[in-house]
Structure formats: structure tokens, C-alpha cells
């Protein structure tokens, strides 16, 4: 790395006003993108946004303990998620609702965690989509380890077999996590052992109330050179550019050449979580400046200007999205609440005298209520 990264290094295929640009390298990775696929990208992004809206409402109604809004980051998530193969393994943080959709994780199941009735909610082995990780960057060493294990499993495979059947890992994290120690350790390991890991950083400009300038004085992608892996800086609100670069990165990783770092430049249009108020730390001018770069707007413009959709498409999508939201609401309210006594079983794999004593006390306590006969709360 001898040259500083500039704005010209930002990969963009679809401009904010919906113009499709040509690209020497990445056009080849978009050859199969037809009208159907474009419409499905829009559909995924719109459904993710509607789900996000419904979950936020459920939190405000006291039905979720917390919600982590994703509004503004749909393109970064749908574009990258759609670039993966079902056999690839995904390590999300806790905001990757759009990626979850591309992995066919049920939106409803995702609410168990936020409703406080499960430590996870879905079986990560079914969709190769790991549990949400609440501890920032804790999933990144796991991703490196998973990638190193893949290399052991695929030892002796030739390049053709790797390209056809090889597995890869995508690790999602944010600009805030990028400065956690684990991020550094993970990238050093992955690179030293050529682990097939794509480090997908959604730089949404804010780590709760800490602006990006505090995380790094240079674009994050410049760090990739320090580890000795390729780095790509992409417009994270451009679903096509994200798809193309992630496909390139997965191909690179899969072939045994080692990890890749992607910095998807995006913006969190809403709050960090439902317990956060962004008006306390950022200016409305900044929010206004990002609003026109909304990932849904630019794809809608492109679709409409190229006559790939009609009004009916959007009307039907709105109906479908509302139905999805109503279903999610219904499912969430119907989840059974596991008895608290169950939690004692999940502390240690084997029986433990201290836990047993505490369980006995808890059962005695629960039985001590006048209305105990009505069952567990």
C-alpha cells in the first residue's frame, strides 16, 4: 500500500440517481442479473424494511425488550447475502436481519431473542446462519476458526473442486467492532492460514454515538493492506455493487487464496437500538444528506426508468409486506414463554450442587404464591 484510498476507489454500479455504470472487473460478476433478479432484490430490501418497522412497533408496544433497526443498510445486507451459497457459513453481529432473510431464516423466529424468551431463536445448522452475537466482534475469531477448519476439511482439494464445492465464511461486523481487539486477531489468523473468510464491514458511520472519525482517520479498507489481504471499498447502498464485490471476494477466498476485507460504506438512517436517540449526538443536516442515498430509492428509480416494473409491482409488494408483518406480529405474540426453571438446566452440561440448590429454592418460591395453581408465569 503506497497510495492513500480516495473516493475514486469506491466501487459503484448504481448511482444514487439510479444510473447504471459500467465496471471493468465487476460487470463480469453481474452477467446473470436479469429483471427478475433485480425485482427480487428490491422485494427482499422492502420486506426487510417492513419487518424492521413492525419489530420497532412491537418494541414500542412492550412486546420486545429491545430492537436493533436496520433501516438504510438493506442493500449492503441483501447484496452480500445473495452472493453466498447455502453451504457457506455466516457469522452475523445483531443487525443482520436482511442477511437472515437471504438465508431463509424466518423473520418470526428472529424475534424470540428480542422477546427475551430464547438465547438464540433459530438453529444455526439449518441455514448456516450463526446466532446473533451481542458481544461486539466476538464472532470474528469464531469466523477465522471456522475458516481454518474448512481448510483442514478441504485439504488436498484442487482448485476446480474448491471452486465448485468449497465452503467459505462471511463475517459481518461494523465500524465500531472494527476497532475491537478480536477483529485484529481474527484477521491476522485468517490471513496467516489463508482461511476462506470474507470480512464484511458495514461502515454505517456511527458506533452508537461515536462517529466514524474516532474509529479511524483513514478509510477502513486501508487496514486490509496491513494484514496483507485484498481490500475493497464499496458503496454499501448499491445492491449491485455489493453483490458483485462479495461474489468476487467469495471466489477469491474459496479458491484458497485467503481472506478478503470489504468495507461497505452505508448509513444507519435510524437509531442504534430502540433505547437510543440519535438526535442527541448527530445533526439533522447529516441525516438529510444521506436520505437521498437510500438503497431502495435508487433501485426503484432504476427499475422504473428501465420499465422493469409497473405500479402494480409496488402495490402488490406493499400488500405482501403488510401480510408478512401481520404474520410476524401474530407469531411473536403466540410464542410460548418457557418456564424459568428451564434456565437452570442450561448453566452446566452436568448436574451441579449449587445450581440444584438454587433450583430447589426457586421451585419452592414459585409454589409459595396463592395463585400458584394457575401455573407458571
Amino acid at each position: 500500500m503506497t497510495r492513500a484510498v480516495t473516493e475514486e476507489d469506491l466501487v459503484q454500479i448504481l448511482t444514487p440517481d439510479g444510473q447504471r455504470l459500467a465496471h471493468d472487473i465487476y460487470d463480469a460478476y453481474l452477467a446473470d442479473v436479469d429483471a427478475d433478479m433485480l425485482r427480487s432484490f428490491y422485494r427482499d430490501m422492502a420486506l426487510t424494511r417492513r419487518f424492521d418497522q413492525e419489530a420497532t412497533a412491537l418494541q414500542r408496544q412492550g412486546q420486545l425488550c429491545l430492537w436493533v433497526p436496520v433501516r438504510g443498510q438493506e442493500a449492503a445486507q441483501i447484496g452480500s447475502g445473495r452472493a453466498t451459497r447455502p453451504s457457506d457459513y455466516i457469522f452475523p453481529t445483531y443487525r443482520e436481519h436482511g442477511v437472515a432473510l437471504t438465508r431463509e431464516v424466518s423473520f418470526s423466529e428472529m424475534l424470540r431473542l428480542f422477546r427475551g424468551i430464547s438465547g438464540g431463536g433459530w438453529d444455526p445448522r439449518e441455514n448456516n446462519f450463526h446466532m446473533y452475537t451481542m458481544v461486539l466482534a466476538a464472532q470474528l475469531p469464531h469466523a477465522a476458526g471456522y475458516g481454518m477448519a474448512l481448510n483442514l476439511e478441504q485439504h488436498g482439494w484442487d482448485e476446480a473442486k474448491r471452486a465448485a464445492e468449497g465452503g467459505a465464511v462471511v463475517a459481518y461486523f461494523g465500524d465500531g467492532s472494527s476497532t475491537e481487539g478480536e477483529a485484529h486477531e481474527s484477521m491476522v489468523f485468517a490471513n496467516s492460514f489463508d482461511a476462506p473468510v470474507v470480512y464484511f464491514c458495514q461502515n454505517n458511520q456511527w458506533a452508537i454515538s461515536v462517529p466514524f472519525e474516532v474509529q479511524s482517520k483513514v478509510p477502513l479498507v486501508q487496514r486490509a493492506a496491513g494484514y496483507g489481504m485484498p481490500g475493497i471499498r464499496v458503496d454499501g447502498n448499491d445492491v449491485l455493487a455489493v453483490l458483485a464485490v462479495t461474489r468476487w471476494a467469495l471466489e477469491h477466498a474459496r479458491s484458497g487464496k485467503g481472506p478478503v476485507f470489504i468495507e461497505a460504506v452505508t448509513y444507519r438512517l435510524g437509531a442504534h437500538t430502540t433505547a437510543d436517540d440519535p438526535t442527541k449526538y448527530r445533526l439533522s443536516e447529516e441525516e438529510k444528506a444521506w436520505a437521498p442515498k437510500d438503497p431502495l430509492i435508487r433501485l426503484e428509480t432504476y427499475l422504473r426508468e428501465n420499465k422493469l416494473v409497473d405500479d402494480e409491482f409496488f402495490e402488490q409488494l406493499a400488500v405482501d409486506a403488510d401480510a408478512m408483518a401481520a404474520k410476524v406480529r401474530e407469531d411473536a405474540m403466540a410464542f410460548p414463554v418457557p418456564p424459568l426453571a428451564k434456565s437452570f438446566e442450561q448453566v452446566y452440561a452436568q448436574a451441579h450442587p449449587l445450581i440444584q440448590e438454587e433450583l430447589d429454592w426457586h421451585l419452592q418460591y414459585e409454589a409459595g404464591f396463592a395463585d400458584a395453581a394457575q401455573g407458571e408465569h
Partner: protein
Amino acid sequence: MTVFNLPDVGEGLTEADIASWKVAVGDTVEVNQIFVEIETAKSLVELPCPFAGVVTALHAAEGDTVLVDTPLITIDQDGNKPAPTGTPEPAEALATAAPQASEEPGPLVGSGPTADSSVRRARTNRPKPSSDPAQLRASRASALTEEISRRAASLSSALTREVDKAKPAVANFVDRVLAKPPVRRLAKELGVDINDVVGTGSQGEVTREDVNSYQAQREAEHAAAPTYWAHGELADARTERTQVRGVRKATAKAMVDSAFTAPHVSIFVDVDASRTMEYVARLKKSRDFEGIKVSPLLVLARAVIWAAARNPSVNASWVETENGAEIHQKRFMNLGIAAATPRGLLVPNIKDAQDLNMRELATALNELATTARAGKTKPEDMRGGTLSITNIGALGIDTGTPIINPGEVAIVAFGTIRQKPWVVDGEVVPRWITTLGGSFDHRVVDGDLSARFMADVASILQEPAMLLD
């Protein structure tokens, strides 16, 4: 009828103020329609309605504080209004899921610390500790040490030695005084060493009541102490230590920054403000000012704006740029008023105060003071000030050397106004006298200019009619 209780919309909030209702009794509401805006300790939050139906009751008025998990709104879901389009049978879907009566479990969250006192479930018996607390702790300690010993036996002797070393630490941990985290916190806040408190809880734990009664006893001892001053005690007990946090910390930093970057020059002038007092009395009686609080501060604010237009370099800021320092002279006035609030010292400002007439300025001053006193001043209200006033007279102080609000170059301190002997035409007469103090950043405002500015402000207090010029 379905009652919706106030949920905990943050993490661990216990109450919220009603900022504004968006619906009224009799209105039809849809699922997720915004029906109220509440202000929590963290932010303003709009609440979407969980049910469709007709509003039959609002359980609090705007400005009221509502506890989490107490009723907010009642909705008649059998209002039989059409369901919103696109959401198939939402009312039906909700009817099964929504908490309709007390038997149904309510929202999963929102039962914050204060909530369960009012809905405590009746008990037939209290769980008994399996033995007395000391014994229990001892049995726990022995269970753990036994476990450690059992495992250690199968390990090498070197490891056994390590485990032996760890035993006292484990026993120590298990022997720790029991108390719930909020009680520990209460003790810490009161400065009570929890180890000194005798626990009376069912598990031998220290309860909130134990801490409070310990504190009450301690306070009684303090009251018996003849004086505050520490005599002959250890050096540590002679100094009271308070952690510097929050607004106190921010104020301290702002003041140090200001005092050590801007060389302050302070000047004072005594003023006969009798005419200002007469003028204020007239305004109070005037019909135009009915219901608006009028005080001499209003005249001073107007005087400062007027004088700043004649001496504009006081309404400026010193800005360090890459190409050296610049002076930014403002052609607008965001007039800051220093206010003592429950959160500490804040300096909210009135935006574009130069455009306000006397009545509008009075209203703006009132709003600013009310908001500040209620602790609701928003960060943007404090940003972008260009010149400030501190009304130390309200506290009965004659004058002082104010410290300039960071980012500005001048501040005026308004002393108390009281009757004093004053010489008029060679005779001593009682007049309403006040002292104005001003501090100026000498990098921007030279002595003659600050003097002229202060003289101009004083001239208005002496003769408010000059404002008519």
C-alpha cells in the same frame, strides 16, 4: 375493552412524561398508528398503538408522569370499525394475543423495578431458607471446596497445590455479604459500607430496609454531632470526596477551557435602574403582556441586543483554523441565558433574539426558563450561542466576574437590584441600584470597546426609553 400499559421503551426505564396525545377519546385507531408522544429519561418516543378499535379513555394528561406498567390508554376493540387494509384480520389476530384481562399475561417487558409493588402476588408462605444464613453460606463453601478437592485428587500434585491456594479465595467469595445489586448500589450511594450492615432478609441478605435503617441511625448520630467541622479525626475523614460527573464535569471542562484559552478582562458599572423598574411595572400592567412574566432581565436582554448592534465585535467568536485564527463576527444574536437547573448549570440560548420584539422576547425568556427548570433543555438549545447573560442578581448577589461561555467573547453578569442611597443633584435619595459586570475575551474585544458596550447597556437600564431611538 383493552388497557394498554406504559411499556419500558428503553432499557430499564421506570417512568415517562406524556409529551402530547395524538388521539382523543372517541377516535378510531389502527394497529401501529402513533397515538402518543412520551418523553423518557433518554429521549422523546412516539408510541404505536398495539390494537385497533375506538379510544375510550386516556389515563393521563399531557405533562403527567406515568409509571411503567400502569394504564396509558383504553381501547374498545369491539368498536367494529373497518380493519386497516393490507393487514388481514388484525383485530382477530390480536384478540387472541392481546392481554384482554388480568388472567392473560401482559407484555413481557415493562415490569420495571417500581412496577411490581402495586401488583405483588399474594403469598401463602414465604420460602424458607434451608438453614440459617451462616450455615447456608458455610454449606455452599464446603460444597464448592469439596468439588474442587474431588477434581483435584485426580490431577497432578502440582495442580493440587494450585487448587489449595485457590480455596480461600473461593470461600471468601461465597462468604461475601449477600445483597441484591440495587441494594448494594443504594449502600454505595449513601456511603454505607455494606459489610457493616446486619442483614435481616430470609437468606440473611442485607435488604433495602436494613440499609435505610442503618443510614437513619447514622444520620441521627450525625445530628448529635455538635458541628460539621471534623476535630482531631484522621485526615481522610476531614475531607468529603465527591466524584465529578455529568453536567458538573462538563461545566468544569467548559470553564477551564474558557478561562485558560480566552484572556478575560472584566469591568463593572453601577447603574441607577429606577426607570427600568418603573418601565417593568408599566409593562406588567399592560394588556399586551397579560399572562407573560416580565422582569428587569427582559430590559437587560433588550439592552444587550441593542448595545451589541452598536459595538458588534462583542458578538463574535475566536476560531482557530488551519490558516491561523479568525474572528467571526455574527450578524445575528443567539442570546444565552445561564440557568441553574436540576441538571446543573446550563446556558440555553434564544435563537435570532435580534428579530424579537419586547413581547416575543419576554415569551422566549419565559419558555427558556421553564424548560431549563424542568430539566428538558435540549442539546440544540445550547448550541450556537453568540453572547450570554448570567442573572446572579436572582440569587441576591451584587456582582461578580463571569467566565465567558466557550465559543463566545462576551458575557454580562446582572447583579441584584436594590434600593440604595444615591446622590442626585447634590442630594442623597433612595434609588434602585444595580451593578453590571462584564467579561470579555481580550483577544477580540479591547478595553475601550468593552467599556463602550457596557456603558451602552447601562444607559438603557438608566433610560429604557432610549430603546425607542
